[in-house]
C-alpha cells in the first residue's frame, strides 16, 4: 500500500491545499476538535472526533436556497446555485463516513436535492481508521468497522506512517494526484495495529449493544411502549443531540428580508423543538414525550422501515457525550429492549 511518513503529512497537506480546499480536524484551545480549512502549518487533531460532525460539509447548518426580488405585484426568482469547487475532507472517522451514505438515502432519493448533490459530487472524503476508540463508541452495533472505514480513500496509521487505500474511482484519482509524494510501504505493522484496535473494540462498555429489537417490523410495539414517559422525563427539549448528530437531517425553510429582497434559506431543525410540527390549527406532537419518541423512532424504526433495515444511527457517541442531561439513544435502546 502507498504511504507517507508521518513527518511529511503537512507537506502533503500543503500540496493538496494548493490545488483545492482542504479541511482537517484541528484542536481548539478547550481541548475539543473542529474541522477547519487547512492553512500551512496547521496540525491535525489527535482527538478521536470533532464536536460537530462532518455532515456540515454536505448539509451545512444554513444555506441559501433562492433569492426573490419583490416588485409591486411581481416576484422575480433568482437561482443562487453555483457549481461547487472541488474540496477534500481529511480525517473523517468511520462513523461519519457511514453517515454520508445514510444522508445520501435521503437527499439523493428522487427528487434529488441539488444543493446536497453538488457538494457531494465535488467533495472527496478521506477517512482515518480509528486506533483509540472512546468509551462512548458503539459503531460496531451498526456493522461499521472503524479499523477499515468507508469513504473515497481510507487512511491507516501505524504510528510511523500513513497508508492510503482507495475505496472507489474518486479515491484512486485522489491518490494518483498525490502519488509523487507517496512511496510503497510494508503493511505488516498495520495489520497488527488493526488487530489491536479490534481487540479494544470488544472491550468497549457498549460492545454488546444490540439492534436486534429494532427495525420497521417493531413499529407499533415500540411506538406504544409505556417506557417513553420515563425516558423523556428529563429531556429539556433542546437540539443538542440533533445538531451534533451526523445523521440528523431534518430542516426548516425560512425567509429572511434583507431589506433589499428576500433570501430563502434552509437551516437545521430539530424534532425535539416544540414548534417543529406546530400548525396554525394544532400540533400532533404537543408534549416532549411525543417529540422525544419521534427522534428515536425515526432512527431505530422508521428509517430502517423505509431503507431495507438500515438504521439511522452510526454509533459515533456524540449525543452520549453532549446531551445536557445525559439521555441518549443507548439508554433508549437498552430500556426498550427490556421486556
Amino acid at each position: 500500500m502507498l504511504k507517507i511518513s508521518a513527518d511529511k503529512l503537512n507537506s502533503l497537506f500543503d500540496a493538496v491545499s494548493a490545488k483545492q480546499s482542504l479541511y482537517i480536524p484541528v484542536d481548539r484551545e478547550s481541548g475539543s476538535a473542529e474541522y477547519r480549512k487547512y492553512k500551512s502549518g496547521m496540525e491535525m487533531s489527535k482527538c478521536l472526533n470533532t464536536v460537530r460532525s462532518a455532515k456540515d460539509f454536505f448539509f451545512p447548518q444554513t444555506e441559501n436556497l433562492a433569492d426573490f426580488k419583490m416588485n409591486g405585484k411581481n416576484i422575480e426568482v433568482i437561482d443562487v446555485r453555483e457549481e461547487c469547487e472541488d474540496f477534500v475532507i481529511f480525517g473523517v472517522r468511520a462513523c461519519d463516513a457511514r453517515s454520508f451514505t445514510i444522508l445520501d438515502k435521503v437527499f439523493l432519493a428522487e427528487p434529488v436535492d441539488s444543493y446536497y448533490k453538488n457538494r457531494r459530487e465535488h467533495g472527496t472524503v478521506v477517512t482515518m481508521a480509528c486506533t483509540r476508540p472512546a468509551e462512548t463508541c458503539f459503531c460496531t452495533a451498526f456493522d461499521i468497522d472503524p479499523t477499515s472505514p468507508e469513504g473515497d480513500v481510507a487512511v491507516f496509521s501505524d504510528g510511523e506512517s500513513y497508508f492510503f487505500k482507495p475505496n472507489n474511482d474518486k479515491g484512486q484519482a485522489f491518490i494518483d494526484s498525490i502519488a509523487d509524494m507517496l512511496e510503497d510501504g510494508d503493511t505488516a505493522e498495520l495489520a497488527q495495529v488493526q488487530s489491536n484496535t479490534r481487540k479494544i473494540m470488544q472491550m468497549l462498555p457498549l460492545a454488546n449493544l444490540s439492534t436486534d429489537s429494532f427495525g420497521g417490523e417493531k413499529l407499533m410495539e415500540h411506538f406504544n411502549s409505556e417506557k417513553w414517559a420515563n425516558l423523556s422525563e428529563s429531556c429539556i427539549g433542546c437540539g443538542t443531540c440533533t445538531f451534533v448528530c451526523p445523521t440528523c437531517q431534518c430542516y426548516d425553510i425560512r425567509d429572511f428580508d434583507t431589506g433589499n429582497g428576500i433570501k430563502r434559506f434552509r437551516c437545521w431543525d430539530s424534532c425535539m423543538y416544540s414548534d417543529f410540527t406546530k400548525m396554525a390549527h394544532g400540533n400532533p406532537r404537543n408534549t416532549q414525550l411525543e417529540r422525544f419518541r419521534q427522534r428515536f423512532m425515526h432512527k431505530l424504526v422508521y428509517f430502517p422501515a423505509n431503507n431495507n433495515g438500515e438504521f439511522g444511527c452510526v454509533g459515533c457517541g456524540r449525543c452520549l457525550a453532549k446531551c445536557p442531561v445525559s439521555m441518549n439513544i443507548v439508554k433508549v435502546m437498552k430500556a426498550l429492549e427490556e421486556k
Partner: protein
Amino acid sequence: MQEAMIKRAKELLADGTVNRVIGWKRGEFVYDSTPAVFGTADEIDAEFVFDDFTQANVSKYLVKESKKDGKILAFLKPCDTYSFNQLVKEHRIIRENVYVIGIPGGPKLDIEKIKAKGITGILNVKNVNYTLEIETLYGTEKLPFYEAISGKCADCKSKKHVVYDELIGEDGDVLDSNRFDMVEKLENMTAQERYDFWRGELSKCIRCNACRNVCPACTCENCVFDNPKSGIENKAAADSFEENMFHIIRAFHVAGRCTDCGECSRVCPQHIPLHLLNRKFIKDINSLYGEYQAGADTTSKSPLTDYRADDCEPSIVHERGVE
C-alpha cells in the same frame, strides 16, 4: 452522602411527607447521570446516584413538578437553592409542594475537562485524596482533582443554602469568589479585542438552545425565538449579527434574575463561556445599584424592576462606553 440521602428520601416517602423525589439517576458510565423523579423506594435503591459528577441543577424541573399532585422532595445543592428561590419569587414554583433538603455542593467534576487532557476510553474515575485515578481502556491515568473541576464550581459564589426544610451535612457561607475576574479582564480589553473575543466564541454557536432550555431563569411559556408571531423567531442566524444577538438578548432578558448557577456554560456543546455575559450584568448591577444577588431571598425587589430616586441616570451607559 449518597447513602444518607437515600435513607432520608425513603423515610420521607414512607411517612407520607412526600410522594416523589427528584434527584439524579445512574447513567451508562461512571460520570453521566440524569435528573430523575423517583416514586418508590425500590426505584431509589436501584438508580439513585449522588457523587462528584452529579452537577445538574434540578430546580427548573420543579416548575412542572410542583404543580402535580402531592409534595416532592428535592435535593438542592447551595447554588441550586438560589435558582429555586428565584423561581419561587417569580411564582413559577409552588413552594408548599416541595420539600427541600439542602445537600453539600461541589466542587463537582466535569468529564469534559478530563477528556480535554486527551484521556479517553474512561471506565472508572476514583478520587483518592484529591487525586483522580482514571481507569481507561489504555491504562490508568492520574490527574489532580482540581484540574478537572467544573467551571461553575471553580468560581463558586456560595456554599450557603438560601432555602431548605432540612439539611444533610453542614451549611456553608457566601464566599469571596473571584468570579468577576474574567469579566474585568474583558472590560479592560479594547473594544476591538473584546469584539474579537466574543465573535470567536459566539460564532461557534450551533443554536441548539441547550443554554436557554436548561436555564432556570428562562421559563417563558413560549420563547420569543420560538414564536412565529414575535417577528424575531429564528432557528439559525441569517448573519453574524443575529448570531451575536440571540445570546445578548437572552442575557438581557435574564439580567437581574440570573443567579449565576452556571448551567448555560455547563451544557454548551461548544464550550462557549456564556455565563460571562450574565456575570457582566451582575457585576454592573452590583456597581450601579448596590450589591444584589438574585435568588438570595424571595421578597426583595430586583434593582432592574424597582425604581429609586437615586438610581443612576441612563447617561451612564454613554459615559461608561467611552474608552
